[in-house]
């Protein structure tokens, strides 16, 4: 997969995980790896540029908390982030559905939600 598509997919996955509740970098990396069943075993450090980029774009907001005597930065999705996520998910599902249709591998149950 080319880097631009991968980068966009990573941002979408970050927003989706953050949409389910406040999260932090390590937890996010593990969740992505786990929920993708190992397909997205990215270098964990590579998530942070994407996280900070989303924060600068105000799609995520961040705050610091104390954890085990360390500072931990938590991220939460903003309303703008939710709108962006919904838009990207819709585009992705339509794209995947169209490709599957051409390849003859269309699956039932795909929705635009």
């Amino acid at each position, binding site marked *: 997969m080319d880097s631009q598509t991968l980068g966009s997919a990573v941002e979408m996955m970050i927003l989706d995980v953050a949409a389910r509740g406040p999260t932090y970098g390590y937890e996010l990396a593990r969740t992505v790896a786990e929920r993708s069943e190992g397909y997205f075993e990215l270098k964990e450090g590579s998530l942070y540029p994407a996280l900070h980029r989303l924060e600068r774009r105000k799609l995520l907001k961040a705050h610091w908390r*104390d954890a085990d005597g360390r500072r931990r*930065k938590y991220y939460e999705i903003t309303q703008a982030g939710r709108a962006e996520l919904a838009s990207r998910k819709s585009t992705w599902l339509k794209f995947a559905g169209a490709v599957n249709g051409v390849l003859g591998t269309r699956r039932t149950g795909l929705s635009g939600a």
Partner: protein
Amino acid sequence: MNPGDAFEAGLPPPQADEPPALRRDIIDELADHLECSFRHELLRGCDPETARARALARFGDPAVVARRLWFDAMKGRIMKQRLLIGAGVVVVLASLVLTGLAWTAMARVQLESARALAASQAANKQMLARLSEMAESLKHPSSPGWNPVKVVVVDEQPDGPPVEGVRILMARSGSTSAEQQWRETTDSQGNADFGLHQPGSYNLSIERSTPEGTVSGFQMLNVKAGTEAVKRIACPRPPRKKAAVKVTCQWPREFEKAGLYLYVPFVLSARNLPADDGDGQPDSWTLHLPLPEGSIPRRFGGPMGPPITEKEEFQAYLFGTDGSTTEFRDGRAPFPWIQEDTSRDGSYLTPPRLLADVADAHRLPFDPARAKWAPWPYRVSILLVLKPIASKDVAPGRRRYEVVAGRSPAFQAAFVPNDFKIQAAPPNDAQLGQPLGLIMSGPSNWLNFSPIQSPPFDTPDGESRFVPSLDHPNEWAIPFPDELSKQLREMLKKPAEQTPKKP
């Protein structure tokens, strides 16, 4: 491991216009990640050296990541510097060209000089007019440099009545300096006047306390140059009354004779109210209920954070396959602990077992009269399946269980249960009597441990949240996730465990 050094090695020398907290924030965030990863590897049975190597291999080059984050944050400033330098070069070249033209055409230069003089006089006149405007603006309360900031707190709704006595801490975003923090309390009109402040972004920590409890929240405030910043906040009140709640859970029939118990804690969750500040985001509020008398509250996130409590922070139940329902007195949880067989260097020789020693005195048969919850959102924080086991070294008055399976709801961390930190020996009653600090922090032998390495579950209604109402009976049936059934089927197929060794 000293991850801070690895990250700092990748950062350029400090720049004059670099935000003061940038470097520290990058290092702290990435160091926390590596520490979590390192501990995870330890729990998987690695020795410390292997754990470090694996954590670094999964993370990537720390110096490269830190440098990338620094450059991304500083990109705007660096580009601006380059543009200024470029503009300076252009100005110099333009000046040289103009001088050459003037030398060869003296008459034209004289004419041009006369014209330039007239233009300069006009510019001076404009500058004088602008200076007069600025002098006028200094008389106005809102000057470009210092701007009045006020917070107004109202009750529950954006058009609610003012609330007196709400404590607000305002801090400059990105700064941890005490000099960039200001505290005010709202007056009878709900106003908290913070005086004059420079433009920029600020964090607000809001705390509203009544005898019934404390509600706290965090918000952002953007102060724009030349304007008065007024932030209106609708803050909910800690509930005065509690609602009767009945919780049930139906075990799948296939496990009815298995002799197991499902532990279900319900944690106070955030309550979202519509915001009236134009950013479109709801305001999120957290409720903290009072500690028992004489307890010392700990504060979440440090000395300036909202108070956290152990009592009534959550309700907890134990649902047996025998149909029994047990409530945990005062919400005390069965604190899990690891039974480990460690070598002298602290590594794990055998996979640890997760046990829980539950005091009989903390368990009570369910009594509807006692089951009163605050009318506030609660969520299921985790599901743990406990299996009673026989043990000779359990303390009198306690029963020992092994944690054999568990799940975490969709909105909770799939990997690490945030509600538990596990210690390496059974807790005693003195420790259980302490506030929630026992859970939030502890000595170095506390570990973040998750015995549950499976995807989160989704309830049929999409969320494991419950909001008790004062207006009608409240009954919540906990759905038993299919994935948990699957885990249990696998577990029950395994041969019976041997008697555990002494810790």
